[in-house]
């Protein structure tokens, strides 16, 4: 038996390699000199609410004039009403009250988020969504003749998910903004044992870099290989599997598939051995409490953060998700469970961060396909555009509403029809603010958020430092 073995060679994680794709050839991602190794640990957690969250019912106007506009727009008082009772709203108390006197309350199922907000650990970004440049209602309506740039395929699930993930605007782009953050920071992150991007909820555009490749694990850990083991035959099986995965292949598809097999073998033992040493969180316990699937993902994220030193991690971006938000039907019945789960899951995750004393090092933020129409379709709402997102963590300058909460009225100044609200803050600004906190230098923000130069404010100010 003369079996030749190749050593694992992973070129993809090498920093400073630039591929040209939808960019000027020669773009070099690694940050310029002066960006030495990170002395600290930071993690971002992207919580994606698949389906398009009706966030006008997540943060609701609570002052009389604004609530009345909302109530009317949502068909309040009719059989098909989507309006939340004003008396049931959970009030929030921003440090800087709205100068117009408008006040807001959270959906009645979101007590956890109310506590986080009012204690300064969470902020709200109002009316954020994909934009290429600031857009008024008139500019939207005249875009076809004026050429005013709008994101393509507005109101479409997959296209707008892609917009949030990639911030690509009208460009052709195969990377996401989380992936590009990793491209920029890879060299500074040093010799991490895992890629910066780790998903617990499948392969997403968000985490694909132009160079960096994410690692996709399961909601409770990495999968190990059933046929591998320590005996002579079982150990040989692993060796042979690795050799086949490391072989040269003629086609890009075989090579792409073999790369997944290599990474799966490479990371499985490392991840599971590390996870086995993580603590049992009181807020997200290993047993005794029924956790939602989202909480299970977040428990594993907390564990991965707990074992960061063991894996030599200094920068991590985690992706978790929960679905069911496409509430064309049964919205009034489904929303309490959906939003209640988001609120309870975020609250328990924040408590787990506190158990580690890492609440200032980790920031969770939400994204969703789009906001939804103010108008009721009889039993729910339909696809729209801008919406409300949460940012949670000790480094968040919380207890504030960032951006401009719109007047929720049909045919109002931001309504492009049926209560589809034009965002007044762009997803690029949202991403750039987070990326800057995470360590991306100002000069590199356009790599992460390509349209950021079209907006006056590159940093929305919701992150400390």
């Amino acid at each position, binding site marked *: 038996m003369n079996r030749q073995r190749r050593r694992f060679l992973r070129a993809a994680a090498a920093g400073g390699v630039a591929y040209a794709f939808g960019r000027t050839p020669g773009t070099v991602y690694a940050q310029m000199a002066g960006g030495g190794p990170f002395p600290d640990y930071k993690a971002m957690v992207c919580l994606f609410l698949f389906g398009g969250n009706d966030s006008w019912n997540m943060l609701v106007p609570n002052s009389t004039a604004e609530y009345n506009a909302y109530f009317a727009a949502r068909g309040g008082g009719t059989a098909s009403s989507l309006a939340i009772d004003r008396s049931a709203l959970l009030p929030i108390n921003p440090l800087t009250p709205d100068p117009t006197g408008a006040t807001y309350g959270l959906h009645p199922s979101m007590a956890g988020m109310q506590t986080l907000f009012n204690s300064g650990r969470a902020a709200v970004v109002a009316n954020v969504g994909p934009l290429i440049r600031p857009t008024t209602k008139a500019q939207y309506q005249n875009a076809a003749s004026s050429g005013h740039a709008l994101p393509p395929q507005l109101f479409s699930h997959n296209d707008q998910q892609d917009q949030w993930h990639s911030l690509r605007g009208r460009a052709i782009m195969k990377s996401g903004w989380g992936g590009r953050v990793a491209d920029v920071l890879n060299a500074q992150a040093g010799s991490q044992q895992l890629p910066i991007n780790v998903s617990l909820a499948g392969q997403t*555009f968000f985490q*694909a870099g132009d160079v960096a490749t994410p690692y996709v694990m399961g909601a409770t850990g990495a999968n190990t290989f059933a046929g591998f083991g320590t005996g002579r035959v079982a150990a040989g099986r692993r060796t042979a599997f690795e050799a*086949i995965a490391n072989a040269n292949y003629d086609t890009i598809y075989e090579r792409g598939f073999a790369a997944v097999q290599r990474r*799966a073998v490479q990371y499985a033992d490392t991840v599971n051995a590390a996870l086995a040493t993580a603590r049992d969180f009181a807020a997200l316990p290993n047993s005794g409490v029924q956790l939602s699937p989202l909480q299970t993902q977040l428990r594993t994220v907390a564990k991965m953060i707990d074992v960061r030193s063991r894996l030599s991690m200094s920068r991590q971006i985690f992706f978790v998700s929960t679905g069911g938000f496409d509430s064309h039907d049964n919205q009034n019945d489904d929303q309490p469970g959906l939003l209640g789960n988001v609120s309870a899951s975020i609250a328990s995750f924040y408590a787990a961060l506190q158990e580690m004393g890492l609440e200032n090092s980790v920031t969770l933020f939400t994204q969703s396909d789009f906001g939804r129409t103010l108008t009721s379709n009889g039993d729910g709402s339909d696809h729209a555009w801008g919406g409300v997102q949460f940012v949670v963590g000790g480094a968040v300058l919380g207890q504030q509403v960032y951006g401009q909460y719109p007047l929720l009225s049909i045919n109002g100044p931001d309504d492009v029809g049926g209560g589809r609200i034009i965002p007044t803050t762009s997803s690029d600004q949202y991403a750039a603010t987070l990326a800057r906190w995470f360590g991306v230098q100002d000069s590199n923000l356009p790599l992460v958020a390509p349209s950021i130069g079209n907006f006056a404010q590159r940093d929305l100010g919701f992150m400390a430092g």
Partner: protein
Amino acid sequence: MQRVAERFNNDGTGRRGNLEAVVRAILLDTEARSAPSGANAGKVKEPLLRLTQFWRAYGARAASGRYGVQAGNFPGGVSSIFGQGPGQSPSVFNFFSPFYAPPGEIANGNLVAPELQLATEFLNTQVTNFFWTQAIARTTAQTTLGADIMFIDTTAEQGLAADSGALLDRVAEKLLGGAAQMSATLRAEARAQIDLTAAGTVAGNNTRVADAIYFVVTSPEFVLQR
């Protein structure tokens, strides 16, 4: 499209809409008859099609006669293992995006590999483990399987178990379109692994057959649809 459309308009004798001529034009077109070549040729088989091709090649069946996707065959559900299941698409957008391209040479080449969106480290390892269980514990060599458990027919392989070369030739014929299609690396690695187990006992033969099938069905070359 144009060649076939022209055949639809005129079957060669001036007749329009001759179905036989159209089918013939599709099946005998140069694009359909010549093997594609080059680094971009082919596509990735999606996970469930890897399974159905494998099951068909190996005459998979259950004692009950049912072809079930129930828990006995797919603990946790077929979607939780394969990332997709018959009639189980989570939305109208199906199981993967037509625009998906993994970072690296595929994305850089402005190409897509939609099926690779399901080939995550997590899901693909589940699929890999599914095939291992099938090859080692769910074949005609096992006698105590539940009525609904899908098993593969490895009778011919059991007869070749003592000869690792002949065994691999047989598996390659079933899964790769012939022994000549198997790469030298796959053959050498799989053969060396098979020969780590002595033939002659029931358990030994079973392991040798399982390794032969496992390494071919999980190989990148089986995953490529040319």
